[in-house]
């Protein structure tokens, strides 16, 4: 079988159209790969940040140049064991997929490199054309053992068929290079997009019924607003898709005209803020966001002056949008509850994690008028500490320290108002705090003696919790702001 030739110029043009801003990389790749029958460099490494188009471009080019039995594409996320990697490659190159028709059985069982190589040798058309194996998310390959990648890089030698290995990763090559030396790859770098390229890419998705200029002015603002925090194409696209309907809304209910872009932005400003707050962190899901938009789509905008209590309340203030955005501020408060004593256990762990052990006696000794004493003690010590260390090595900045359970229990019993008996229940609650990851075990799991833990909760949470049991944690924390 003779390989058909591909018109590389045409391909270059269509790639440039699909992927604006990536012309140099496309050129470079095409130069390396050439025609299907050409021999290519044995090892390419494609590196770039997330969503810089690595996967899409490589797959596009490969599918245009080669037919599927010559290029295998492996996503290392999906193929989490060597066996899966081998079998996926063999299936793609051999063009056989288990399916319903084969009863989901497969004809290859390949567990090791040796088997893999012998299978590779036996594949049809072995002597004809070079092969390509692409490993996407290649950083995962490192988990498969130290010899896995070096062995793959010698696959051409071992099978006597020219084979090109292409790794795609967002981890630089330096982090891959094994200690005992390995063939160096040809590098292709996919840099982060600048504003211009980003705009071009985003503009590809311009809705057909919107004028391009209008859309461009919108994305340019979105880029300006969010680019400082996030230049990820996917994220930006997500934001654009969700914000654009909001942006257009005033057009439909007649509050603004298409030409009044600044006014539109003013009207939309709160959503931008809300989006930066919530949407980016996915604290509010896009479905919720959309559901929200859908209510206020043109056509049923009558509910603007409806009797909806939330709306009418704020429209008196003459700012219906404000209410909308506020409405989006879904409460993110902590809404899980713990049993009473479990809360105290958590508080005690927090104290044990952030207070130095040597001060326990001062804070928690059940002496006369303990609070005033400890407060005074606290200030004195604080002063002394400040002069010594300048407060630089504050535990608060260093993160939680691990503590022995016994110490935590001692604190626990001393901060309780009414003493309780030590029972199995307390122990089991500690265990359940660990399951909930509110406490993290730092000692070995097999060690039953002298268990050590860390407290894994934030100050806000612990304050909230201690507030709910009327415990003033501020008075018991040392050197904490």
């Amino acid at each position: 079988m003779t390989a058909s030739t591909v018109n590389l110029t045409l391909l270059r043009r269509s790639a440039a159209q699909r992927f604006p801003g990536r012309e140099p990389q496309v050129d470079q790749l095409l130069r390396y790969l050439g025609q299907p029958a050409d021999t290519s460099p044995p090892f390419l490494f494609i590196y770039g940040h997330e969503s810089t188009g690595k996967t899409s471009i490589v797959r596009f080019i490969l599918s245009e140049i080669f037919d599927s039995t010559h290029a295998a594409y492996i996503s290392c996320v999906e193929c989490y064991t060597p066996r899966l990697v081998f079998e996926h490659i063999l299936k793609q190159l051999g063009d056989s997929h288990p399916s319903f028709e084969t009863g989901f059985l497969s004809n290859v069982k390949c567990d090791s490199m040796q088997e893999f190589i012998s299978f590779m040798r036996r594949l049809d058309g072995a002597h004809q054309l070079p092969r390509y194996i692409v490993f996407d998310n290649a950083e995962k390959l490192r988990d498969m053992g130290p010899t896995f990648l070096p062995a793959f890089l010698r696959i051409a030698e071992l099978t006597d068929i020219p084979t090109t290995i292409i790794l795609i990763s967002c981890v630089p090559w330096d982090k891959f290079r094994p200690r005992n030396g390995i063939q160096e790859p040809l590098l292709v770098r996919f840099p982060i997009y600048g504003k211009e390229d980003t705009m071009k890419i985003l503009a590809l998705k311009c809705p057909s019924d919107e004028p391009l200029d209008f859309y461009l002015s919108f994305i340019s603002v979105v880029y300006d607003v969010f680019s400082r925090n996030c230049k990820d194409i996917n994220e930006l696209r997500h934001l654009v898709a969700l914000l654009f309907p909001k942006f257009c809304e005033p057009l439909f209910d007649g509050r603004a005209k298409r030409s009044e872009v600044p006014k539109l932005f003013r009207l939309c400003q709160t959503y931008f803020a809300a989006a930066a707050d919530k949407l980016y962190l996915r604290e509010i899901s896009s479905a919720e966001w959309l559901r929200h938009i859908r209510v206020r789509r043109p056509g049923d905008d009558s509910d603007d002056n409806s009797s909806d209590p939330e709306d009418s309340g704020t429209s008196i203030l003459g700012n219906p949008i404000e209410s909308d955005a506020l409405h989006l501020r879904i409460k993110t408060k902590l809404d899980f509850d713990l049993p009473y004593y479990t809360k105290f256990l958590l508080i005690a762990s927090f104290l044990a994690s952030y207070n130095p052990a040597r001060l326990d006696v001062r804070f928690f000794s059940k002496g006369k008028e303990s609070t005033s004493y400890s407060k005074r003690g606290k200030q004195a010590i604080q002063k002394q500490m400040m002069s010594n260390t300048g407060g630089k090595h504050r535990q608060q900045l260093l993160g939680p320290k691990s503590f022995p359970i016994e110490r935590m229990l001692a604190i626990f019993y001393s901060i309780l108002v009414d003493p309780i008996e030590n029972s199995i229940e307390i122990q089991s609650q500690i265990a359940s705090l660990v399951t909930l990851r509110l406490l993290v075990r730092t000692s070995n799991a097999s060690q039953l003696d002298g268990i050590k833990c860390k407290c894994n909760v934030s100050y806000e949470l612990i304050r909230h919790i201690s507030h709910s049991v009327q415990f003033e944690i501020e008075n018991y924390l040392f050197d904490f702001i």
Partner: protein
Amino acid sequence: MLHNFDSVSEVVLPHVSLSGFRKLINGKESDHLIALRHQLYTQVWSAIRGEIDECLAHVHEKGLQQVTDRIIQTAEAMESISSTISGAQAFNEIPTLSLFAGINLQDHDILYTQIAQRLRTQHQCFVMVLPSGQCTNPKTTMTMIVSELIGKVRDRILLDHDDVTGIGEVEFQNLVRSAKSQGFNVPPSYDIKTLVDWFRHLKSRNPTDGAPLIVLVFKDFEGFDQSTLETLIRIFSEYCGELPVSFVFGIATSVDCVQQALPKHVSSLLQIESINLQLSAESVNRIIDRILIPGHYGLSLGYEAYEHLLDQFFLHNFSVKALVSTLQYAFMDYFYANPLSVLVSFVASPDRAPLATGELSYTLDSLARDMAEDHFDILRMQPSVREYLEGLDLPAKALFAVLDDNMLFFNDHLRPLMDRLRHFRLHYTLAIRCFQSMQECCDQSSLKKPLRIIHLFNLNEDLFRTEHYKAVTKAFKRLNVETVTDFIRSCVEAFLPHVNDQGEGNRVWVIIRMLQDVIRGLCNEPNPTVTPDTVRMILQTDRTIHQADLEQLLTGVTATQQGGDSSDQSSVQTAVPSGLSAPPMTPHRNSSMRNDLYMSLLTGANRTPSAATPQRINRRLMVLPDQSQNLTDAQIGWIQVAYECLDQFFRRTLRCYDRVTLHELFYYDNKRLLKKAFNAQPRASVQTALGQPGLYIRCQCCATHKEVDAIHHSHDDTCVLYKLYLECGRLINLYDWFVAFSSIKEGDPRHPSPKELQARFVRGISELQFLGFIKPTTRKTDHVIRLTWGAM
């Protein structure tokens, strides 16, 4: 009384496994009664268990519906998003529902099974509930998911084509066979590709209806391995377009944990919505409301046990499962240890009385015959029974008869007492709900206590003595007439089917009867014969009044009032006896007092109300500032009496259980046992065992030495060492310890050799070390460190 002989004792007992029930009363209990107790326990508990399950199902119902609806909706929304927003597919977001179900993971099992069940049956989804323990790496997890789903998918295909019933499977087997002959003999690797293929196949089979949704439930999200999660999410999001997948995260803590567990680029692949489904407190409330308060099966919990139950739940673990176990233990202990538990059927509400029918059914009469002398003695020994008997004020001879004649005691006293208890409970249950709705009428949220707390108050002391009751009634007085009327009406409606003028319910019946008049009065359509003052008087009497009496009385009173100005006493006097003759007199001693009652009533009625009214109104005006203007004078009179009437009503019905005779028998209150069973105190037990071995080892010699602290050679080695240990300081010299040990053991008449002693010493201290009392140290040679301080 013993004429209707029942054949119970003749029934040959079926072979019942008594599962360890012992003969009580020093082994004198009859086999029949043991079997009965056991049977009662099984039946009562299984009935209660059933009710608990119903309660849980009820509480879960709404939440479940919400959850399943939401899962379906988001999945659908995903599709519509991709159609409305251009390029949205590129996000590859997986619709995810995070479910906050409270911190008690064990309780969630039922919940998730129910969710899965519902999704399967109502929406034909494929649901996988993933246990975190088994999902430790991507491989096992994917294998589990894929193999399980494929199995299901195949079932589905086969089911859908039931016109060729059976052929589907055969067809598949044929495929497998022919594939095998072509060399396809490796079992599938259960990766995502296989799953996708299956799905494609499934869709091609029936292209009309949309492909079913796959729901993966991560039951305890916190417990999952983070990198496994990450891999799973990335894989499924990659195939979002081909496989409709939804996730459910069961989160016990807060949303933060998703962000904590997953890096940003992974969490942005999820489209998370949250639902709060913390049902355990609600479940417990319902269990208390439906099961513990009414005590339908004859047994309730007393104050201490009930408080213990609540404390365990709210202070310690939030676990419904633990609560149910404790409850079961209480019931088990009751039937196991209390010979009188056989009486329970007779205080149960009639529709649920256990063993009312069936082979082992029994009646009071048959039971009375089966009970031994000791049963009756135990009965008479109950403090409340003694109090009751003393309160009877019987002449010595009659009292002796009661004490001596079991049947007399049983029939004339025990029966009515049990009836009374049953009525008390019934009225209590109804009234406590009324009281709760009374709270609801008030505005202050601080007054709105949950039923379980009111019940707790009430078990502790009579509710009307508590501050809470006073606060509520006070707030209630500020409400407008309509609310009050409606509230009274609802109370009356709740009670009417359950009261009659006979027996124990009489006082409550009278009050309800009066409340009816009060309602009429408040609605400005009073019964012409009744005035607020008559109501008040009738309320204040403390006697049994039967229906006929009452009618008589009311007309009589009216007659007096009408003729009141002429103070025509004689006409009234004539009216009274005719009223008296009508009802059957139950207690003989009342008949003479009846006259006094009427007399007192009538004299009360004769105080001309007109004189008192203005002053009273003034007082009321202060109470009801904002209502006075739009109320008629009559209504003001009525509303005042309404308050009194309600007060009386609650005083009557919401009494503390310990004022009711026989309460010891039907209110379980062994908190200590429950604590011992469920709140083990390992440390304390170890210390007692070592310090007072006699409590655990019942040997003769231990019984002989009385002083607890003395160290005796016959004690176990470890105990001796422990006692010596208590006298030591922080560092213990092993040699000194050994010397002290041998000198004590010298008293042993067997005279153990020094070698043996040394071996026993070593064994003893290693036991102490194992128990955590000492620890070796490098600080000083031949020393160990003491790890405990005193008796903590």
